[in-house]
């Protein structure tokens, strides 16, 4: 085991760092959270800027038009972007991390040519239509039905937790084309301007509409928009997951470390650090986030050699999500009544408390043990696939 970066990895970091220092200041003002049109424009402008500099799709293979960077370079990319305060992937998330990699791996040449460049160049936005009101952790029980009608599928059903639906051009859609279970599912590309799509925003506990529910009423989708064979969509979806290189939560982890530092300084200014109990809880989080950063490097190293991050993904997510929640809870305690609103408040020293930022981070942390596989499902995965305990279902 060796934490030393190679000369070429260091060179990649130096070049990237220089470029970020020049470029990020032009993206300092993120648009208001609920102004979706402005968010789309902002995030696409960032993606276009990455593209022009040769950093679009750093993690995509070269045959998909990406940079084909090694997992360690992907880690460096995410680390440097986060430390430079670069914009988040935002509305480009599904295109860059799910739909694009799926089309690269399973799409036809025509599909690749049609969809991939537009994702990389920041021209088109994708959303995800996987979960349904009655198909959450048990995704394979999904019921949105696609019936063949000539060269089209006619799709009827409902999807939920769809991020960026209001501003998306396409939706990666899982539908039932066959029997119950995993073997009856197909993966379709649904143009979001198709007639019959109703988008109903879902208000989250943050008060904002981060997600939407989609109602699909006899939406016609060309059969040519199917990726992979009919009824082979479950496998197609799993292929996408194999693109993960252990870097999924790098941004979030580094953000937690930064927020912990902010909270420590606020606690100091409020005169709270005489409390050894509080300091121990802070120290515990320092140690945990440092360890998770080490575990990230381990998972990325594993991916660099084997192509998959090994057993680390679920282990990381279980530990990280709980420590992120502990950080949120502790920040709320430190801020005390200042945590009762997100409006900018000043401490007794006249300096900002950063209560709004901590409050929003606390909200988001609550979702970490739910989204992308609840902690209970993750524990089942760890117990069955890593520890080899008997399956319970």
């Amino acid at each position, binding site marked *: *085991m*060796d*934490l*030393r*970066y*190679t000369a070429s*990895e260091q060179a990649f970091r130096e070049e990237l760092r220089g470029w970020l220092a020049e470029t990020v200041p032009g993206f300092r003002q993120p648009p208001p959270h609920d102004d979706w049109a402005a968010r789309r424009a902002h995030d696409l402008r960032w993606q276009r800027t990455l593209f022009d500099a040769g950093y679009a799709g750093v993690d995509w293979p070269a045959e998909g038009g990406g940079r084909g960077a090694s997992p*360690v370079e992907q880690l460096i990319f995410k680390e440097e972007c986060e*430390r430079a305060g670069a914009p988040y992937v935002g509305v480009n998330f599904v295109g860059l991390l799910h739909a694009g990699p799926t089309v690269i791996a399973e799409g036809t040449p025509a599909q690749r040519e049609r969809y991939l460049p537009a994702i990389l160049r920041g021209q088109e936005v994708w959303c995800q239509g996987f979960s349904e009101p009655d198909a959450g952790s048990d995704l394979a029980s999904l019921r949105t039905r696609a019936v063949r009608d000539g060269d089209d599928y006619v799709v009827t059903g409902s999807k939920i937790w769809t991020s960026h639906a209001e501003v998306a051009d396409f939706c990666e859609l899982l539908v039932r084309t066959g029997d119950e279970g995993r073997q009856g599912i197909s993966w379709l590309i649904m143009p979001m301007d198709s007639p019959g799509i109703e988008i109903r925003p879902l208000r989250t506990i943050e008060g904002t509409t981060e997600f939407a529910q989609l109602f699909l009423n006899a939406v016609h989708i060309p059969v040519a928009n199917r990726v992979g064979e009919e009824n082979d969509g479950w496998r197609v979806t799993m292929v996408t997951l194999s693109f993960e290189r252990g870097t999924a939560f790098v941004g979030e982890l580094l953000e937690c470390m930064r927020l*912990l*530092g902010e*909270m*420590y300084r606020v606690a100091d200014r409020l005169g709270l650090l005489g409390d*050894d109990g509080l*300091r*121990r*809880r*802070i*120290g*515990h*989080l*320092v*140690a*945990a986030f*440092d*360890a*998770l*950063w*080490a*575990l990230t*490097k*381990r998972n*990325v*190293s*594993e991916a*660099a*050699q084997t192509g998959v991050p090994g*057993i*680390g993904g679920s*282990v990381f997510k*279980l*530990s990280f999500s709980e420590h992120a929640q502990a950080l949120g809870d502790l920040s709320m305690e430190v801020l005390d009544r200042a945590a009762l609103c997100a409006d900018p408040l000043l401490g007794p020293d006249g300096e900002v408390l950063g209560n709004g930022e901590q409050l929003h981070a606390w909200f988001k942390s609550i979702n970490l043990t739910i989204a992308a596989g609840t902690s*209970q499902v*993750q*524990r*089942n995965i*760890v*117990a*069955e696939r*890593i*520890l*080899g*305990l*008997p*399956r*319970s279902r």
Partner: protein
Amino acid sequence: MDFRVGDDEHELAEGVRAMVAGRLPLEHLRANEGAERAIGAGDWTALGETGVFALTLPEPDGTGLGMAEAVVVFEQLGRALVPGPLVGTFLAASSGMIEGSSDGRAQVGLHCAGPGPILVEHLSSLDGLLVLPAYDRRSTPRLVSPAPEAADATRVTEPLDPLTPLWRLESLPAGEPVADAGGRMMRDGSLLTAALQVGHAAEALDLAVAYAKERHQFGKPIGSFQAVKHICADMLVRAEVARAAVHAAACLADAPDVVAFEAEGARRTPDELVDRAVMGAKLLADEAALANARAAIQVHGGMGYTWEVPLHLHLKRARVLATTFGTPAEMALAVSAFA
């Protein structure tokens, strides 16, 4: 960067595991439960001859390896519940103190001075005793050599760990200051102690998983019940996170250039950065060992509460190690300054 446990390290670990399984199997070690000497002189020599105390000594006296390899080896010693003053002897050997410490002819104890009663481990077997305070680089380690006479101390009749005999002393001789460049003893000793703890955490996990697969109730293996599965999953998470922390701290201790690079970004001195990593790793490893031993006892049900099943030995050793080089509470307090 390649932070995987490499083939060489796997081989090293397997070599130690096989040697201990052959020469120092648990049923053999357990014959010394409650004895004045937790490990016989012949067994200690056999252990020393494998080179576990001389890993970081330059060749030809040692193998010239780093702390990254040492923590891999010590994890195996923890897993196998090997008793004796492992960390003190390693530190003495690495600094060329006490003739025979590197090859198993001498045992060097370790006492971390604190406010509580003076309880010295393995006293009657010791050729020397290193005295270090809790984690603090500014303090100077001292060597008491020869070790205080056991005859001048009161042997504890009911020690927590039956394989860690204790003696109570009213006071310790001052001893001689030991040259210790940059607080390396504190650093390496804490790391090795943390590595032992990872071994206890990992072994407790393996024992729990094996039992959960084999024990049937309600007509099924208890490991098919989610309530039991989730206990085991949490044990794995604790062990893997702690192991990553220990390995990262060991790599930082071995590679000053990485530390210098990271320190620049973090606006810390390289020493501060290594201390942060070591203390954080010790904290997580202590907690993983204690929590996993407890969880493994729970998975074993009533059997876990028996003397026969060795889980209590892991729990008790983990408690002994958690008081060495600073408790989890002290480590957490110290690390908080790095937020």
